[in-house]
């Protein structure tokens, strides 16, 4: 069989367009501090944190099959480490952001030892308990203010405009990096392994996939991303407390974004985050009613659009902005029937 | 000859994929009919349509003169149609006896009860309190058969009774068949082993790609007829 016969398609017309549009958008966004208002920057930073966090949850649950309600453990941990490095070690908080994320990734390794003992719904709540252990542990450390939390004083010396712009650019960079990281990961060989594990763990292992190591890798990457989002968020918010940093609402919002957009596809958290942002912007003054509606929306989407809104659109219209599949092209015509 | 169960132009779908393309089938009280056919021919789908696990149009299936197509499975079993599903499918958290009792949910009167079954398969009486799934494959098949009998059906449908079973078990199970039909029960078996199917049945239906490709008295059909019906056009090409 001459090798030229094998052709495998990995991109779509939509994905090529999306790539160019995406690059253009990022360039425009990068110049925003020169023409936009500080409230826009702040809004972007906030939504970026939600988005990165949701993206990582999608990686974990949608691709890794690990439905966790405890990712706030890493969000808060990243935030606290950033703050401690800034306040106590005198490290510039912006430098401390990636360090906080790194710490969250590292702490995920011992945590996985406990969490991986559970599966399915029990994994979900088990990880929540672990996050509670994080919360209660930090609540009992008086150096970071115990239950009442503390303030990121390290930023007090930095000038307002510099601080705003740096935070904004960091957030933008993190968003781009998160998308690129996840997308390239999924397109690589490892992405295949992940899909295989999600479909059938036992078979994946016997086909030569180091399942435990892959799952751990995903868990650690997701924790890193969550820690990144957390560190970024608390640089923007300045004040940290255990109840806020380890609140289950972080994961709740991530789940809503991912499920509304469509789980197990990169477009999911993107679309979800945009919808979430829009709802939050226009409706959040309705307080309880807004939250109530958000809960209802998640329920309805789960019941009636199992693939999420983007998944629904994709099924109808066949769009795929971030294709990861491999289509075998020009397969030699009709298969030889093996019957009779 | 009065038909107990008939289907007329029965079609069945899985989502958008059509699996049955108009099956005409008739069953007379007291006979044992075998259905044979290649993999994916639609045999299991046919049995599932009869028992309500796959949707069917109301008028496509008549049982004792009444249309039963598309009724819920529970309703159909209460009317007297029971199935031994492909692959045994015992309830893992129920004991052998509880598995058998589940068969009696439909609450129909008749000769079959726990005592009768234990007399037919003594090994089950011995293991009655064990979890059903701790039994060997063959014993599990006995439980699956017994469970179906517990509903005292008028028609018993058996899907691939012998699949994956050791030869000895296949013998044992078919040895129990006369005791079952002896009660006046009508039986349909789906069987991969053509020789076995011809031996135990009075009539044979052969399915091919969702259609009936051959039907006749088991004793009358020749091997050639059967293998032609099995593979139809494709066999001619091969």
């Amino acid at each position, binding site marked *: 069989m001459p090798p030229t016969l094998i052709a495998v398609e990995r991109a779509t017309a939509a994905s090529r367009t999306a790539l160019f549009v995406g690059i253009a958008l990022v360039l425009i966004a990068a110049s925003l501090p020169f023409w936009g*208002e*500080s*409230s826009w920057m*702040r809004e972007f930073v*906030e939504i970026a944190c939600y988005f990165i966090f949701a993206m990582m949850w999608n990686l974990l649950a949608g691709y890794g099959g690990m439905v966790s309600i405890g990712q706030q453990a890493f969000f808060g941990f990243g935030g606290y480490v950033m703050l401690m490095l800034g*306040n106590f070690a005198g490290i510039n908080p912006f430098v401390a952001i990636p360090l906080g994320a790194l710490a969250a990734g590292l702490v995920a390794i011992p945590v996985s030892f406990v969490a991986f003992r559970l599966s399915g719904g029990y994994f979900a709540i088990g990880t929540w308990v672990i996050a509670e252990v994080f919360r*209660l542990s930090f*609540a*009992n450390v*008086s150096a970071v*203010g*115990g*239950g*009442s*939390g*503390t*303030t990121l*004083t390290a*930023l*007090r010396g930095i000038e*307002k405009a510099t*601080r705003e712009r740096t935070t904004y650019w960091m957030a933008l960079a993190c968003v781009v990096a998160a998308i690129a990281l996840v997308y390239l990961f999924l397109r690589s060989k490892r992405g295949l392994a992940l899909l295989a594990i999600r479909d059938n763990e036992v078979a994946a292992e016997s086909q030569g996939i180091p399942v435990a190591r892959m799952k751990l890798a995903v868990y650690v990457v997701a924790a890193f991303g969550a820690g990144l989002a957390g560190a970024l968020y608390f640089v*923007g*918010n*300045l*004040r940290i*407390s255990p*109840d*806020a940093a380890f*609140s289950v609402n972080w994961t709740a919002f991530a789940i809503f974004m991912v499920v509304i957009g469509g789980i197990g596809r990169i477009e999911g958290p993107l679309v979800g985050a945009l919808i979430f942002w829009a709802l939050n912007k226009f409706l959040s003054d309705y*307080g*309880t009613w807004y939250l109530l509606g958000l809960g209802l929306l998640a329920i309805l989407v789960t019941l009636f659009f199992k693939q999420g809104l983007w998944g629904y659109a994709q099924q109808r219209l066949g769009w795929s902005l971030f294709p990861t599949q491999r289509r075998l092209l020009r397969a030699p015509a009709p298969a030889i029937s093996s019957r009779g | 000859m009065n038909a107990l169960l008939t289907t007329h132009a029965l079609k069945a779908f899985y989502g958008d994929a059509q699996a049955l393309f108009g099956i005409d089938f008739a069953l007379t009280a007291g006979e044992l009919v075998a259905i044979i056919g290649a993999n994916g021919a639609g045999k299991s789908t046919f049995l599932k349509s009869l028992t309500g696990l796959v949707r069917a149009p109301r008028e496509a299936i008549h049982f004792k003169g009444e249309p039963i197509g598309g009724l819920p499975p529970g309703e159909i079993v209460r009317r007297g149609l029971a199935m031994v599903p492909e692959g045994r499918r015992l309830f893992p958290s129920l004991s052998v006896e509880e598995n058998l009792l589940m068969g009696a949910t439909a609450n129909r009167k008749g000769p079959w009860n726990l005592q009768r079954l234990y007399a037919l398969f003594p090994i089950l009486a011995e293991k009655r309190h064990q979890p059903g799934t701790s039994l060997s494959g063959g014993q599990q098949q006995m439980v699956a058969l017994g469970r179906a009998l517990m509903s005292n059906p008028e028609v018993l449908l058996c899907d691939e009774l012998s699949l994956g079973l050791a030869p000895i078990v296949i013998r044992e199970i078919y040895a129990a068949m006369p005791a079952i039909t002896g009660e006046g029960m009508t039986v349909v078996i789906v069987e991969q082993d053509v020789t076995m199917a011809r031996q135990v049945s009075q009539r044979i239906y052969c399915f091919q790609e969702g259609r009936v490709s051959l039907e006749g008295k088991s004793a009358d059909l020749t091997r050639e007829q059967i293998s032609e019906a099995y593979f139809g056009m494709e066999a001619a090409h091969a």
Partner: protein
Amino acid sequence: ADTLKIGYVSPQTGPLAPFGEADKWVIEQMKTAFKDGISVGGKKYAVQIVLKDSQSNPNRAGEVANDLILKDKVALVLTAGTPETANPVSDACELNEVPCISSVVPWQPWFFGRKGDPAKGFNWTYHLFWGLEDVIANYTNGWKTLATNKKVGGLFPNDGDGNAWGDKELGFPKPLAQMGFTLTDPGRFQNGTQDFSAQIAAFKKEGVEIVTGVVIPPDAKTFLTQARQQGFKPKVITLGKALLFPGAIEALGDLGDGLSTEVWWSPSHPFTSSLTQQSAKALAEAYEAGAKKQWTQPIGFAHALFEVAANALSRAKSLKAGDVRDAVASTSIDSVVGPVKWGGQGPFKNVSKTPLVLGQWGKGKKYKVELTIVNNESAKRIPAGGTLRLL
């Protein structure tokens, strides 16, 4: 005319909602007071008050404060109601360089909880309330009038207030020891604890007769109920926070009678509003008539925050943040909660202290339960209506 915006953040929902309960009414009243606008630097501005709910959540408090500053572009931020709301709001203002006046947090949790440096103070944020030294003085003044074994049990939760009140240096332990009280402090507990038998057992073991602390209302009920079940009967219970509101006392049923708490403001306080010229009594009556509810202590402070805001803005050279801040810093008025003046009337330039007395709940005439001032040794100007009695 141009519009000047004042932001206000308080907990209107969540477990701390009673602290923000009166704010809507106070703001309605302010709309009338400000209907003619305020002139700043010779120019007349219409006034708009933007109220935000912190949902009792510090994260949310920080977010809405940022929204007020960046999106609504308010000239001045006001905030009140426990460190969980006031601290993050103050922090956001400090960082965004917008003036802020806060209240209803003892000054220690506000200052040290935000990692303030006593030598430098803050540049943009100002606080008006009393301090732990006042609450300690009032509590002990009251207890000294009664015959007890001077054994005190402390209930300090792991939150902004609890950590400050229970702090070895800044809080209760040191002064109590100096005054000859023995304190049993089993340790910080989480808000929302379902079971207090550990604390009750410790108090029983030490023979505690006085219980004090600063707990949220549901925890107070859990504690008091279990204490009764388990046969623990202290002679005095003086708690901060949980016993501030009549609703919480009513929810306690029989358990509520005779409980004591600090009083920061009441209708019998001899002060008058600089803005509406209402006396404390008149303000409380207006509230009871308007909101159809019994008066609560935060009313006075919410009102006073606006008094200060109005006064400062009218003195500001312009609406520039720095000018407004300077005007706030140089405030000196007599408000409905007493005199307010930064620099001099407090430990740091950012804190202005108000007077504090001790009160006790009992069956009331007009309402189911009413609060009576039972000790005024540390603020004699405020008249007492009785003396502290045993439970």
